[in-house]
């Protein structure tokens, strides 16, 4: 892609990083939402905070992970914006 101006190249890199962040966070989201739930019965053999783990994950664990994921996304993206100078003044 040598025909790209430095500016275009920079934008392209910004977008690729965005896709990476989005992709990785979505993988974690998928694991918590569907994979952990699928194996809920097996997870119930363990206890966490006094509750069966499978139940805890569905009732509260997943929700807490979601909050962390969204917070992490906001933090990473807002930092990325500043690094690439595309943040709003």
């Amino acid at each position, binding site marked *: 892609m040598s025909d790209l*101006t430095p*500016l275009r190249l*920079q*934008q392209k890199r*910004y*977008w690729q990083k*965005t896709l990476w962040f*989005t992709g990785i*966070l*979505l993988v974690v*989201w998928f694991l*918590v*939402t*569907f994979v952990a*739930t*699928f194996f*809920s*019965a097996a997870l*119930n053999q363990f206890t966490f*905070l*006094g*509750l*069966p783990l*499978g*139940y805890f994950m*569905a*009732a*509260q664990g*997943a*929700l*807490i992970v*979601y*909050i962390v*994921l*969204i*917070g992490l*996304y*906001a933090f990473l*993206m*807002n930092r990325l*914006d500043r690094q690439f*100078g*595309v*943040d*709003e*003044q």
Partner: protein
Amino acid sequence: MSNRLRLILGEYGPALFVVLFAVGFTLTVLVLAWLEQRGMSQRWIGYVFLFLTLLVFSLVGLFTRTSDIAEYFVAGRRVPAVYSGMSSGTDWLSAASFIGLAGALYQSGYQGLAFVIGWTGGYVLLALLMAPYLRKFGQFTLPDFLATRYGGHAIRLVGAVAVILASLVYVVAQVYGVGLITSRFITLQFEIGVYLGLAGVLVCSFLGGMRALLHAQAAQYVILLIAYITPITILSFDRTGIPAPPVLYAKAMHQLLEVEHEVFNRPEEVAVRAIYAERAKRLEQQIDNLPGSLVEERKRMGDQIEKMKSSGASVRDIVLLERERRALPATPQLAHAKWRNDLKDALHRSAMPVSDTEPFALPDDGQSRANFLALIFCLTIGTASLPHLLMRYYSIASVSQARRSVFWSLFFVALVYLLAPAYAVFVKLEVLQHTIGVPLESLPAWVNAWTKIGLVSVVDINNDHLLQWAELTINPDVIVLATPEIAGLPYVISGMVAAGGLAAALSTAEGLLLSITSALSHDIYFKMLRPDASSSWRLIVSKSVMVAVAILAASIAVQRPASIVDMVAWAFSIAGAALFPALVLGVFWPRANRAGALAGMIAGLAVTVFYIARVKFDSIPLLGWYGIGMHPWFGIDAAAAGIYGVPVGFVTNVIISLFTKPPGPESQQFIERLRYPRILYNRAEMSGRGTDV
């Protein structure tokens, strides 16, 4: 808030407003508690809470009234993240969340958790795939986005239809919740309650649109949160000595599992379940032998009445039996429907109740894991495409604020959701310990109060004058509302919970009304029919449309359509299947074009509606269709219809796009602009243009 006030308060205005409101609300509750002790009647406490809730709406509406289009639809686009997060959290917390969620967990234990996971998991999709890009786009409605990205009126129309369909189904459920609360706590007639509640909402949205909504919902959040936290914290403190229900309900859960085990294995419980199993068997035979069995049944009852009359049985018994005979279905079709329901009920009661923490164990259906996952899928995708929620992100000050706002929104939602399992566990424990095995005449007062309005029912099927678990039916919607009574708290707490439920239902209804209104008045009227309309005329049209939609929603709700939970799930499937693929591909796949998006939206919508209609209904008399019922594909419920609709929407969009011309350069430029919060231009190429688009 007036401009003058904003000048004085500056950016701390919203925070100050919330704190002052919280203090004011708490003081009101304390004063009412004091008045209750001095003999204020329950009815008046109910009135005060109802009017307080409506007053908040009206006052905010009055103070924020506006005739500016951008203020009306997107609150001037300068809302900070925390405040908008709080407000859109309230938009999200509906009657279904506030009243229904804990009830679903009470009734079906682990199975109910699909709603917790689905409704919160959707926020991740919303944050990562939708919110920042919609904010960057920055117009007014979802169809705006679709029309700009793909071009043309057709896609705007399909988008608007999907928005209206999903929001209308959802708003009816909210309005129904309002009727439920007012009829119990203020003993108003259901219908009057519905219209009164909507009137309060209308005053607010009518005057101030999104700007009013923003402040009203922040205030409603305060009511809602205090109302949800207080009873369960007191109950938790009372029973375990620890006032931290969400963290420490584990202890109560252990106790619950032990009590459940003991109660469900009592000989009288086993006997009652056996009676229901017997009844189920008989119903099955009757259904198989229709129409003969209906004639036979009528004759059998007639004979028995004759026999009782001649043997001098008590008049009361004879009247009871006659009433039962009159209640027999008139036609074999009706009998079929009624007996099928009775059969389902009897089978449910005859089964050994499932432990609360046991996943996928519904005894009547081997498909529960697939259905559970499918429902989660639909709810997550639906959450990320519900128009009234997505619209909020247009009103936020910037892209980075939009990202933070989703975080705050889920944070405020989570404060309520983390408590829901605690409600279910503590209430179930109370019910098992204080009603089961108790003589019918000394049941606690709340049982009677809720039986009167038909939400709790007690049948003494084995005539032992004691209550067994299988003889008690509690409508799940009752759980949260009745918790203060079940825990024996003062009535003022009940009134407060009712006010919280009302706040949840009304604020969501308001957001939905605004989203329907904007689809009708902005997309269909202004953009498609009369692009030359002046902005003051557009506002007049918006406001009239809003009143019309509100009346329509209320008139559907007073019909009390059968199952509200189902309707809510349908709204999610419809929104997800029609909107999600077109929105996501619109941002992330530049090759998606108009033909693909249009085909994908129509196909997704069609499959979803087709599936719901054919699995759920056997006939639609209005259209003259009969016998259209079909077996569900792979045993998936109609509630999770989106599991077919969403993939069909994606696949159709991709295939049709690939087989037609790529979108033009203006589409490519549009996507480029979405990707970067601020575009940097090469000065040499782009001289003369600003740096920000």
